[in-house]
């Protein structure tokens, strides 16, 4: 027990006060700005060789993005000419070039409210990320700070749930939401409540109220790195436990909260399956489901005439916000990943 206690309740050392090397959970963030002496470097010719190699691989990494943006700025006939600089430019995003149906630009497509989809994805992403960061932080703090009967067993259970494939719970969770929609529907016994079941956006973010195993793990590791004295000081000042959590723990955990927030924002922005299961009305769609709908409607196979320039414009709109987010919060992306990897 004492060894475990030592490990679980560091009283200094590996904390904010004495940053360590970028190793271990969020060590990089904890020890911001400080690095151990780096290892040996390539010299001379070797260095030039590897720089050229990396430059070559960089082209492979970047090329699809450039191809995509350029294809989205071409007329339909030129999309597959594979030029990086369009020979004929065409703005495929907004506007209505001609009154001919079937020639609309992305934002003017009939029954395809792209702007609404962007809005849906943004608010569901922000709300879900905020909720899961806060709920995971509360749970994680309890596991890091308190001792209570069953703590280790419960924590092991949390870790175990990370291994559970989503497919196992997917169907019953859908059935639960289906029952809820019957209850809150017009003829249900809870009809006075707002409709919150299937074909609403609630199933997309309500689960975030309950924390998430991976984020709880990540935040717990972070809290363990904060010297216990900092919390105790607040307790001596007469704070209750919750106010200690809110006033001391949350502000200190800001880097970890940002990492969780960004990871979840990305997860929501990526998610196709959940909207596919729960959403029927076009106006409720998120951007990934919307993009899939555009592909199905405009792609060659779905009876469309292969308007790939529109599909490419839609893809750019889906990809671009993530690139911008990455540009702003790159450090949190990289250091968050470097600590433990991410949600499977």
């Amino acid at each position, binding site marked *: 027990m004492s060894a475990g206690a030592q490990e679980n309740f560091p009283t200094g050392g590996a904390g904010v006060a004495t940053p360590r090397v970028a190793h271990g959970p969020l060590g990089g963030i904890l020890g911001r700005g400080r690095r151990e002496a780096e290892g040996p470097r390539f010299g001379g010719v070797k260095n030039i060789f590897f720089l050229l190699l990396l430059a070559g691989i960089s082209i492979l990494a970047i090329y699809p993005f450039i191809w995509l943006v350029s294809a989205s700025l071409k007329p339909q006939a030129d999309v597959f000419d594979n030029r990086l600089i369009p020979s004929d430019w065409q703005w495929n995003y907004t506007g209505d070039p001609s009154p001919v149906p079937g020639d609309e630009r992305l934002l003017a497509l009939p029954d395809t409210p792209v702007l609404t989809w962007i809005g849906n994805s943004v608010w569901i992403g922000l709300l879900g990320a905020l909720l899961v960061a806060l709920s995971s932080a509360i*749970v994680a703090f309890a596991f890091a700070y308190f001792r209570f009967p069953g703590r280790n067993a419960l924590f092991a259970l949390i870790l175990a749930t990370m291994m559970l494939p989503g497919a196992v719970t997917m169907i019953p969770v859908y059935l639960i939401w289906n029952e809820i929609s019957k209850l809150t529907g017009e003829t249900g016994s809870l009809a006075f409540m707002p409709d919150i079941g299937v074909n609403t956006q609630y199933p997309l973010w309500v689960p975030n109220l309950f924390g998430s195993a991976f984020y709880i793990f990540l935040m717990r590791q972070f809290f363990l790195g904060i010297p216990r004295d900092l919390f105790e000081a607040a307790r001596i000042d007469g704070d209750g436990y919750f106010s200690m959590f809110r006033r001391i723990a949350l502000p200190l955990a800001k880097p970890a909260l940002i990492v969780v927030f960004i990871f979840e924002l990305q997860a929501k922005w990526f998610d196709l399956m959940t909207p596919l299961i729960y959403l029927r009305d076009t106006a409720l769609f998120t951007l990934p489901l919307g993009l899939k709908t555009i592909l199905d409607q405009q792609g060659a*196979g779905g009876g469309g005439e292969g308007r790939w320039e529109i599909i490419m414009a839609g893809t750019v709109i889906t990809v671009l916000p993530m690139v911008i987010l990455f540009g702003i919060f790159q450090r949190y992306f990289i250091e968050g990943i470097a600590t433990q990897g991410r949600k499977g």
Partner: protein
Amino acid sequence: MASIASSSEAAGPPQGARRRLSALREKETWTAYLFILPWVLGFVALTAGPMVASLYFSFTDYGVQQIAGFEKTSRVGLENYRTLLEDPKIALSLKNTFVYTLMTVPAKMMVALGLAMILARIAYGAGFFRTVFYLPDITPPVAIGILILVLFNGSVGVVNRALGLIGIPGPFWTTDPNWIKPSLAIMSVWTVGGTMVIYLAALKAVPQHLYEAAAMDGAGPWRRFFNVTLPMISPALFFTFIVLTIAGLQTFTEVYTAYFGAGSTGAEAPDAALMNVVYLFRQAFEFFNMGFASAMAWILFAIIMVITAIQFVVSRRFVFYQGGDKR
């Protein structure tokens, strides 16, 4: 045990302190339970309950008639599992999934390790290249599915144009059953940045004196790689091995976007792209065979568990935790 209480609480006459301590402990316990309540509720409502329900449904004929309330749910015993064994599409989807996972996991690990080792030692530009290599990883999977269709298009795609430049006639990646999974796998290797970042962090944490000692003992670059680098970063390798395998076995979005749904590639979706979770999803939410799909989900769960267990047992011999540095 006394160390739970802060030093100020522990001071004072032993008798009173003990009483105050136990009161404090009780309060702490209840507060702790209150703090973890969100997770407990979620666990019961969204994980444990559904797991039990899912297991139950897998022994029933729960389907569209039952959801609508037209028919009663009846228990069918092992029938779903028997059908599973006989359904050729199950075997096919499992085979596809295994092949895809076997293609992607080693390829991603090797590419990521190679890149990370170069980045760890390059004299300048490491930060820039790390950013560039990570960029593909922030591409939404739906976009990746679309990119597969356009970049790997057999007649006009840029991949085949590039292959043509060096005199190789490219295959019809997106329609030839033999090439659908390789093109999916290549696109998956494109998103190698996250794995690379994990390896890079692990490589930077290897103490330099180990390399110096090995070099002094006359170990060449290969010996140093196999006897110092690999053992020291083996926890990171193991971690990504597990995570990538589980992710590979549950591949859905890219494949579904490119080849399934309301007819993105015509009426007949290619069998070669039918992944296990895709088939499960179609059974559950397109054909509404919930009982059958639940049985599929449990088979998938069992397979993932068995594979992960094997990975754990096998890697116990290879993973080296420095100073009991557990994950």
